[in-house]
């Protein structure tokens, strides 16, 4: 295995484009090292991104949004008060990943690019309307987060493409978001269902919403029908029931020992309601 430490994303992309064997980028390594250890993925080229300047930084952008470096750990994300104030749902999703030790290393970008349908930070990013900046040998482009997952363990990134930052939109007035997951224990487990809700209120009425579901289909997805169920309402019981129905209807889950199809489908509705209530309360400043 060749271990590379490029000092720019252009170099990282070039290295990846020129590599012919199994290639992986190294952010926190909490997926890559586990896969190496299991023999599931034995990279010929491992491209460590942590020596690139700025990758551990969180910066406010000119429009009031946020740019998050690809090596920012969960622990760092959670310690950033202003970011937590703007996007508590995004941060709480990432903070659910693993233990304290895993939090010291794991990143949003690695969670997204590992491609797990149960990745805990991804529904929050999708609901927030986050995007990623992709660097390729030909240049840079910005892509919505929901366009990256492509089924278990897969992404839409082509060889030679590397994510160079995560971008969160400006929070703006009256906004709130939340993420909840169901696991059979209280810590250190894989989501059986995950749900993120992001909304905006004006005078108690919801004017915008985005809802994303995790672990209930091969890809983490944005569910427009859930958003439609609550936009224009003040999150009354009828709206919550419609939201739950839309969430359950969007499920196409696996059936395993940790959750049957029936269970996952029902819990998706329950979590959607609960996450929406939290997001709504946050949006109203309660």
């Amino acid at each position, binding site marked *: 295995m060749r271990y590379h430490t490029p000092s720019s994303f252009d170099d990282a992309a070039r290295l990846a484009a020129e590599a012919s064997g199994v290639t992986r980028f190294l952010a926190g390594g909490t997926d890559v090292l586990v896969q190496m250890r299991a023999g599931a993925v034995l990279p010929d080229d491992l491209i460590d991104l942590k020596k690139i300047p700025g990758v551990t930084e969180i910066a406010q952008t000119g429009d009031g949004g946020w740019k998050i470096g690809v090596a920012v750990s969960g622990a760092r994300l959670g310690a950033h008060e202003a970011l937590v104030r703007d996007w508590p749902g995004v941060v709480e999703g990432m903070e659910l990943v693993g*233990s*304290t030790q895993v939090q010291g290393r794991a990143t949003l970008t690695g969670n997204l690019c590992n491609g797990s349908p149960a990745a805990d930070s991804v529904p929050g990013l999708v609901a927030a309307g986050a995007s990623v900046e992709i660097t390729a040998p030909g240049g840079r482009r910005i892509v919505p987060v929901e366009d990256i997952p492509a089924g278990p363990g897969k992404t839409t990134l082509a060889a030679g493409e590397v994510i160079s930052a995560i971008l969160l939109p400006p929070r703006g007035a009256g906004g709130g978001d939340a993420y909840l997951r169901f696991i059979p224990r209280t810590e250190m487990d894989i989501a059986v269902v995950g749900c993120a809700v992001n909304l905006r209120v004006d005078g108690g009425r919801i004017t915008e919403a985005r809802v994303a579901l995790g672990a209930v289909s091969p890809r983490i997805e944005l569910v427009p029908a859930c958003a439609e169920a609550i936009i224009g309402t003040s999150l009354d019981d009828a709206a919550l029931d419609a939201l739950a129905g839309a969430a359950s209807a969007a499920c196409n889950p696996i059936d395993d020992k940790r959750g049957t199809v029936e269970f996952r489908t029902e819990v998706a509705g329950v979590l959607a309601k609960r996450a929406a209530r939290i997001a709504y309360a946050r949006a109203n400043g309660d």
Partner: protein
Amino acid sequence: MSKMHVTTTVNGDEAEFLADPRETLLDCLRDHLGLTGSKEGCGTGDCGACSVTLDGELVCSCLVLGVEAAGKRVETIEGMANGNELHPLQRKFIEHAALQCGFCTPGFLVAAKALLERNPDPTETEVRYWLAGNLCRCTGYDKIVRAVLDAAADMRKEAA
């Protein structure tokens, strides 16, 4: 496979070793530096027996490559006692019988020390969540949690 020369700081002293880039920091500590206090329980980030700090951040050394430690500060269980004088956490683990086979103990101690550096007065719940990534198959955890809370109380008294 060409090995890489790594220079790092371990428990305050400069350390050097030659590492295959696939080797974990845990392998390098144990096999190249002879620091066998950090244990391998799982090798996959689940048990915390390999806990060390890297530039002050608590991590599983089985999930860090040895080559990634270049130019960084690593603190291991070997740096915890001051000569023959045990760290308060070590004393309290003995007093409370917070270990049986002892395999998990270095990881718990390193993790608990990192907690008390950030939060000298944690609640029981905070201790339990912080240590959720450290597994023990002998003690049932209760004695470990008591030992950490008691050590924290002692350290607050000492500091006052």
